[in-house]
């Protein structure tokens, strides 16, 4: 039996419960979870980074939440509410949150102090400093946070299958229970491939964003050309 037989079997890709549908489900879980994570974590991260308050508590708590086993949390949430897209995405968003939050807060609070002082000296308000100086400087770091969050979520979205939510994890479970190892292999390969693909994609976006924030050579020379 070839390990690739399931993956390359065109008849397994179509229809309800087919590989194609599972792949789309997996992407939908990942996209929605990272989006919700970003919508919550980015404003919170900016607030913490800008004010310098609450960082210990909020970031500590969200990082502690990483230690919660995802399968356990998922089954708990599902039994307390119901199965379906919403509860599953919620659990995955909990996983996406800490990476984005920590990165955003670190990016904002780590924005070049000289630039922040200059902005303040120019008479910018707090809001202007955030939107025109700190946040643009924090974008590359925030994107790297999104990148690691996506990587975690795309790998962990396999647990959706434990709550009858489909996704590529279904291939692992079904394959294991019916001893169809080519099916398990197909699931593993697709999840790994998806993770690499998404990671590269966001990596490229990150490089482009950091070029926009720091055009090549400009910040360095201006700093060097300012003797005391």
């Amino acid at each position, binding site marked *: 039996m070839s390990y690739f037989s399931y993956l390359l079997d065109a008849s397994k890709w179509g229809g*309800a*419960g087919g590989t194609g549908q599972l792949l789309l489900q997996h992407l939908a879980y990942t996209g929605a979870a990272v989006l919700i994570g970003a919508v919550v974590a980015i404003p919170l991260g900016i607030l913490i*980074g*800008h004010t*310098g308050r609450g*960082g*210990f508590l909020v*970031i*500590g*708590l969200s*990082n*502690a939440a990483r*230690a919660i086993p995802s399968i356990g949390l998922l*089954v708990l949430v*599902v*039994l307390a509410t*119901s*199965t*379906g897209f919403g509860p599953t995405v919620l659990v995955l968003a909990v996983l996406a949150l800490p990476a984005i939050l*920590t990165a955003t*807060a*670190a990016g904002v*609070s*780590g924005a070049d*102090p000289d630039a*922040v*002082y200059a902005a*303040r000296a120019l008479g910018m308000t707090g809001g202007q400093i955030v939107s025109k100086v700190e946040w643009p400087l924090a974008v590359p770091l925030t994107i790297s946070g999104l990148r690691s969050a996506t990587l975690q979520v795309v790998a962990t979205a396999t647990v959706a*299958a*434990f*709550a*009858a939510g489909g996704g590529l994890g*279904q291939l692992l*479970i*079904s394959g294991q*229970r*019916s001893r169809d190892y080519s099916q398990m292999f197909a699931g593993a390969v697709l999840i790994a491939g998806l993770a690499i693909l998404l990671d590269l994609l966001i990596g490229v976006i990150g490089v482009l964003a950091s070029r926009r924030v720091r055009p090549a050579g400009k910040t360095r020379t201006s700093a060097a050309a300012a003797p005391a």
Partner: protein
Amino acid sequence: MTIKRSLAALGLTITTLVLAACGGGGSTADPLGSSSAPPSGSAGGTPIVVGAANFTESQILAEVYAQALTAKGLTASTKPPIGSREVYIKALQDNSVQIVPEYTGNLLLFVDKSATATTQEELANALPTALQPDNLKIGKVSAAADQDVYVVTKEFSQQNNLTSLADLSKVSSNIVLGGPSELAQRAYGPQGLKGIYGATLKQFKPYDSPAVKTKDLLDGKIQMGEYFTTESAIADNGFVPLADPQSMILPQNIVPLMRGDVADNPQVTAALDPVQAALTTEELTALNKQVDVDKMDPDQVASAWLKSKGLA
């Protein structure tokens, strides 16, 4: 103006160590066993060891058998759970155990892969011949069975007048079936429902967790679920098991599998036959629940049940 930053990562690791205690502590042999005069003269004092497979129900049944034998004056004990069928059949053959609780359908398929028996009677008739080469014999077949079953909620059953798989085709286009993922490959799965009962389902949804499956069935996200007859979720939620008039699902009635010499001992049959007659699927379900849910010991559960039936 320095912005103070305090970014700290708090790592929390919770390690939970679960120690699963070995269930099924051996019941002590009755010291009076050998003193009561055995009418046949054979095997009265020869200790009988009852083995069990590695799941709750088998361990309870092993305790029930051993204690019933002890109550009839034989020397009997149990062993810690042995494992899968492949292993405990070997244990019977090499005489390290003499009796093991079994299930008719799966036992027949194990010893005769080409068996065609489908009904309870056919299975009971086919088993003795199939077991003869191994010098094994079965005892009385109980009405109690632990087999796959399709269930619907009480409301769904009443609304659609559905109590049997024979009526399924009328409503099946609206039914999403939930079951373990391997059911999709089983002969009695969706393909069997279609081939034997002409019922084409709307969808089959694989479930890894029985608890999640029960939750979805109650929430109406699936309309039909596949369970084992001795799962307490069926009775606890008032699910209606659907009859299987075409015997699509192989019956799995409880039966003691014994070495030939032990099965020929009339004392043994006298002890086990009443147990097999008294056992029902509902009572077996209740016994499983006492061990799995209420965390009682299999030997206590077995002894209480035997007393309640006047068998010990």
